[in-house]
């Protein structure tokens, strides 16, 4: 199953619900491992559900938190450290003292061995936490880089802002940022309308030398509402079409938005 078909299938929604079958769960988890876009989609679904639940939150009684924490205190496992039971030792006099000392020594050794095991386990956990934290920091850094690149493109004096409209009232519903010096093009998705039906998809086009060149499918759920596109020089105008095929078509079917002629001077 290709990625777009998978995303449109509703399997991710079923997975979030806990209603996916074992076979579907296996497929979803494999796709999540293989595709960052699937992970982004899953996270986006979960965030929407969380926000929806937060909007409809109902304040519980004020005593509830204390009661839960009290219950946890009562059932929390007692630490077994140093609680070994020593059976009474037989014998008298020096032998008995020796037996008691030996038993005490054994308990002490067992205690130290247990402590050492605990320490190693904690150390392994802390190392894992540190590794996870470094991974997260790297992800944050990459995200920050993306945001920085986006801001730099928008701020650059050589960047052209191109409006795409539906031609009815001239109102822009998508903004494109195009920079021939940087060779960069980015699409702001924040004002873009959704396709007219669940089984329709938006495809982005540049018209060069009178011929449409596909710039790929519009990713409606792209992070930050921003999508980077391949840059092309000499574009006459840009357009967005609505297609039935999730992977797009070689030529546009129905143009829904288009720009005015682009000034390439």
């Amino acid at each position: 199953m290709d990625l777009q078909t998978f995303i449109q299938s509703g399997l991710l929604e079923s997975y979030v619900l806990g209603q996916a079958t074992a076979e579907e769960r296996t497929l979803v988890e494999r796709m999540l491992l293989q595709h960052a876009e699937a992970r982004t989609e899953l996270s986006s679904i979960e965030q929407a559900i969380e926000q929806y639940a937060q909007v409809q939150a109902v304040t519980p009684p004020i005593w509830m938190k204390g009661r839960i924490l009290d219950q946890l205190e009562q059932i929390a496992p007692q630490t077994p450290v140093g609680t070994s039971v020593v059976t009474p030792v037989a014998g008298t006099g020096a032998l008995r003292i020796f037996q008691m000392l030996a038993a005490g020594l054994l308990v002490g050794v067992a205690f130290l061995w247990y402590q050492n095991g605990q320490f190693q386990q904690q150390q392994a956990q802390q190392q894992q936490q540190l590794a996870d934290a470094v991974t997260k920091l790297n992800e944050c850094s990459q995200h920050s880089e993306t945001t920085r690149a986006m801001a730099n493109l928008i701020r650059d004096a050589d960047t052209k802002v191109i409006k795409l409209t539906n031609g009815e009232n001239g109102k822009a519903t998508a903004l494109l940022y195009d920079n021939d010096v940087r060779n960069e093009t980015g699409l702001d998705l924040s004002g873009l309308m959704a396709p007219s039906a669940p089984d329709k998809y938006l495809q982005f086009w540049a018209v060069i030398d009178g011929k449409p060149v596909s710039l790929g499918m519009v990713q409606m759920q792209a992070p930050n509402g921003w999508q980077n596109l391949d840059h092309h020089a000499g574009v006459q105008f840009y357009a967005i079409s609505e297609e039935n095929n999730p992977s797009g078509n070689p030529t546009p079917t129905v143009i829904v938005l288009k720009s005015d002629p682009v000034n390439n001077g």
Partner: protein
Amino acid sequence: MELMQDLLISRLQQQDSQAIGELYTSYGGALFGVVLRIVQSRELAEQVLQDTFLKAWRNGASYDASKGRLFTWLLNIARNTAIDATRTAYFQHYRKTDSLDNLVYAPGGAALNPDHLGVQEAVNKLDEKYKVLINLIYFKGYTQEEVAEEVGIPLGTVKTRLRYAMVELRKVFGENYAGLLALVLAMGDLS
């Protein structure tokens, strides 16, 4: 923010009871709202909410962040606990005594989160057929087959509408690029 979340998850996995306290502060109200809608009894909902956090504490080690967000995990625990509760005789008794509106909007008891009033308005604008679908499936524990029967539409239509309902919902909460940009610019020169 994510780092803090990761540390919280790590503490949850080590059965730190204070981590449960923090989870309760973050998610208690949202989960109580969901549970209340399922069991339709304040008294039973309070018991279910307590059970939910005790289960979360007991099973914290089994939470796998790679398979979903923490809230989704808690939501599924809460929803399943609530559904189990509705099958008891206790539930059958209390259900007869309360109406949902009284439960959710009782004076001095429950209140919608005022921080979300604007979003609430936006949510209210969702097409009714999508709201019904989201509420039945996500917050009342219906299977997709049960929804098809309840609403009287084919199962395939349920799946399609569910997908589109989520697209609509995400638009309501959609990442606000203009807001992000303003924030970026307010942070000063990044070049």
